[in-house]
């Protein structure tokens, strides 16, 4: 299993200067957690950055892991491609502790990445990023004709849908017949 360490530089706690509040409440060192996607590449992310994800925040809030325990138990997100998880981690790091701007222009323009990103972000429950992504997907078809929309969003026509459905039924029928024949053969 390979590993990359993300967000460590920005995550280092600042040295207290002369601020009286800092002196009154000593800063707790920031904790880090580890996540990996389908490619098993592990990303080190601060708890602050992970707060964007309601799913992960809920998972870690009561864990109280030590650094070693966190490192030994990365959160597996097998349903998310490695490059997509990387995008999500980057976004969380970039927006750690910052108010989210009304628009995010850094999202991928290529729709096959964007749809994967939407699904991942929805799964991880990152509300602001989901809003940006959904807006971006909608922007793709602004002012387009139904035919262009179909091409851009890769939507099959009703005829293609029906043909695919028939094909699937046919295949299922054949498989069922094959299984019955195999079961009959076994019985003999």
């Amino acid at each position: 299993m390979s590993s990359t360490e993300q967000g460590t530089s920005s995550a280092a706690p600042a040295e207290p200067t002369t601020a009286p509040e800092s002196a009154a409440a000593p800063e707790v060192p920031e904790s880090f957690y580890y996540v990996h996607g389908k490619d098993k590449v592990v990303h080190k992310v601060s708890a602050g950055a992970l707060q964007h994800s309601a799913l992960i925040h809920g998972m870690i809030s009561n864990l109280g892991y030590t650094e070693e325990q966190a490192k030994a138990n990365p959160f597996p997100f097998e349903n998310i491609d490695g490059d997509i998880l990387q995008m999500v981690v980057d976004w969380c790091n970039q927006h750690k502790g910052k108010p989210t701007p009304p628009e995010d222009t850094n999202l991928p323009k290529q729709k096959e990445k964007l749809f994967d990103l939407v699904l991942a972000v929805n799964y991880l429950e990152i509300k602001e990023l989901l809003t940006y992504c959904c807006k971006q997907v909608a922007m793709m078809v602004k002012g387009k004709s139904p035919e262009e929309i179909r091409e851009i969003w890769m939507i099959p026509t009703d005829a293609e849908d029906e043909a695919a459905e028939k094909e699937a039924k046919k295949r299922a029928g054949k498989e069922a017949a094959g299984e019955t024949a195999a079961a009959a053969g076994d019985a003999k």
Partner: protein
Amino acid sequence: MELSSDFIEKNQHFLKSCILYEVLRKKPIMDSYRTFCDTVGKDAMEYPDFEFWYYQFYHGNRDLDYDRSADPEPKTFVDMPVVLMTKIVEYLNPVERARLRYVNHAIKAVADSFPLVMEKIEIVVNQFSMYGTLNKKRFEFFKKGSGSTLYEPMSSEAEESDKCFMEKGIEHLALMLKTPKFQANHLSLNILDETLNLNDFLPIPFNAKSVFINGRTTNQVVQFLSAMNPGHLESINLFDGVSRETLNYKRVFKTDQIKQAKSVELPFMGMKADDLLIFSHYKNFKCHLKSENTLEDVPRIRDIIATFEKLQSCELDYHCVSDCVPIRVFAMALGEEIPIESLIKDRHMVIIHRYQIPESNECLEFKMREDNRYHCLVNIVKIR
């Protein structure tokens, strides 16, 4: 000349080079794809593949031999759960949502889950063109020979068709107007040619809250007015800017739409004082009145309006047949003393008169404003 499928099969690098060329020219992806299809043929490459290579090159990866077979199957819009589809569609405007209905039956269900409410629709039809706006988005269909040309502001190129401009225009509008649950807050119709075939022009009943109709004949006006959903329609404005005949108000007033509206604005229809009774159920109305005997008619007008229980305000465009100055005679007929130095506002004479409605705490305030030698505008507000 389109390339043969055999040539394309054997020369995949050629197609990718075409895409790279467009990327280097910084041409937007949809424009690039159109040029690509026009040049090498529609079947040369599907849009998803074109898009893949476009963005590969766009992001600096110029490997024409990149092997895509190991790439995971990309997700598409139809892989989204319905809740996400709905969230995405929420960011589209009503016009774009209406277009979605024609993409696929599953997407249609998502688009139809939103009520389709248009703020303002304006349609103008004459002998040579049909144009207007759908929520400020302009469309123009012009007659060209036996066919038509479509101009859309966002597109630099005009689209030509063999179909006549009315047919194309109706098709364009049907995308939107014939959607279930469709509503418009305001519909403006200017039909400037009485010979046009207007069948199937609007879905019936059409849900509009307010409507402006400018037709050339009473038939047209009644036809369009009758297409509105009477329970939904609140405000009606009829116009006779270019009419060849005076609208027959008796026919107009037979329609349920006029009977059920809350406010109406009518053009000159030859109405006289006693005809005001047809406005008894309105909160607001505007109309033209013609009088041959002001001193007799004005008290009658006042007494009729005093009986209108729901009235909030109305405006009469009062036309006096005699040689007198209408505002002066109107005011005198109400018993108002005409000031020696008339009250001048915006270069027009204004006279205000209050009338206490008998056996009531309410009164009518008449604000008379000189319009021209033969007209005066009388604004009447009920003060409760």
